[in-house]
């Protein structure tokens, strides 16, 4: 019988990879980690704002999910289940401790230029001019700061909506919230972010604590 090669796994939908993992395929477990390590880590990092802590919490998330992979039901999206656990892990941590570290630069553990770039808060550099790129970086940094000041519930919703591209219904299912509540949170988050970025529009440096 042909075994599931790495190439085969790349083309399989999540539900099939999970089924292989449930049958004890080590490669299927690794494929699930490969697919979602960045989105999960990014979500948690932006929630807790500390890189080492985010990595620990992301590991906890994957360990919880993979150790209970037999409980997964194929009628639900695997990614929704995974993000739900990730969000709960981050929210639980924020409730226990106050996290106030904001790190915009690369990981202190990065030892090469590539690693620093991969782990820092940077905006995609696809602008046409140096000025555009500078403005994009300034906007990217400003929005990262602004995200860090949102309430955790708003933060989860806005990131799942616009960074992960989830629909309102998926977010409601992932976070176990009513649809109306999700829409309210996202609306308020957008409003707060817009207020926090007004100083850029006005061309003046705004204090980080500038709330309406």
């Amino acid at each position: 019988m042909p075994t599931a090669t790495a190439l085969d796994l790349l083309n399989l939908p999540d539900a099939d990879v999970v089924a292989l993992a449930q049958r004890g395929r080590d490669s299927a477990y690794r494929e699930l980690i490969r697919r979602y390590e960045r989105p999960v880590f990014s979500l948690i990092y932006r929630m807790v704002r500390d890189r080492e802590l985010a990595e620990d919490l992301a590991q906890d998330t994957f360990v919880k999910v993979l150790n209970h992979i037999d409980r997964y039901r194929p009628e639900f999206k695997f990614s929704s289940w995974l993000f739900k656990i990730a969000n709960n892990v981050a929210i639980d941590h924020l409730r226990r401790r106050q996290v106030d570290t904001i790190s915009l630069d690369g990981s202190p553990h990065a030892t090469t230029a590539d690693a620093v770039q991969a782990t820092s808060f940077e905006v995609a550099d696809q602008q046409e001019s140096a000025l555009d790129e500078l403005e994009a970086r300034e906007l990217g940094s400003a929005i990262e700061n602004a995200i860090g000041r949102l309430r955790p519930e708003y933060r989860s919703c806005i990131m799942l909506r616009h960074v992960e591209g989830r629909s309102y219904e998926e977010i409601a299912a992932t976070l176990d919230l009513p649809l109306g509540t999700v829409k309210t949170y996202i609306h308020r988050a957008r409003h707060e972010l817009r207020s926090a970025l007004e100083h850029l529009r006005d061309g003046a440096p705004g204090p980080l604590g500038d709330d309406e």
Partner: protein
Amino acid sequence: MNHRHLLPDEIDLLLDEEVGFGVGPLRAHIQDCEACRARLDEARVVVDALEDLPHFAPSYAFSNQVMAQVPVFVPWHAAAREWIQQWVPRSVAARAVMVALATTAASVVTLAILWIATDTDLLVAMSAGVGGRMRELVVQAGHAMIATLFGEQVFAAVRHAGTAGIALAIIVILGTLGGSLAGLRALAVASARKGD
């Protein structure tokens, strides 16, 4: 005509590029109202900035660190199936030969069982006075099985021991079967681990 400006929820509908019955008038309003268009553009800057945010990468050892904490469990039936499947030939011709041999073996076993049943008159016993006849038939069937597997001397010893002996023989046979299954499972699990 409605001259009011758009509500925040209506701006959100346009931001989310909703389609539906009520969205048309909103789009029409945006075309005509510079103030609302400006508010929509400001909101869109925020959304675009959010959608441009990159994914961060965890450390290079992340995957290994997770796997170190996740014991990969192979269900015994999955491992057994894979162990058996590795003996199935890949070529069509070889599979055809294997099927033919398996069919032949199954036919021989079926005929043997039918012969024993016919010889011991199982069908007759079921229709008339089952009790004592069944016991006799079971002994005969047991004789055939034990004598074939272990020899006449063993059967004689078991028969001499009486009901307890037969019960012990059955336990031994079931234990052997159980041990075979456990061995099959162990082989299958070992094979699956080796494959990964």
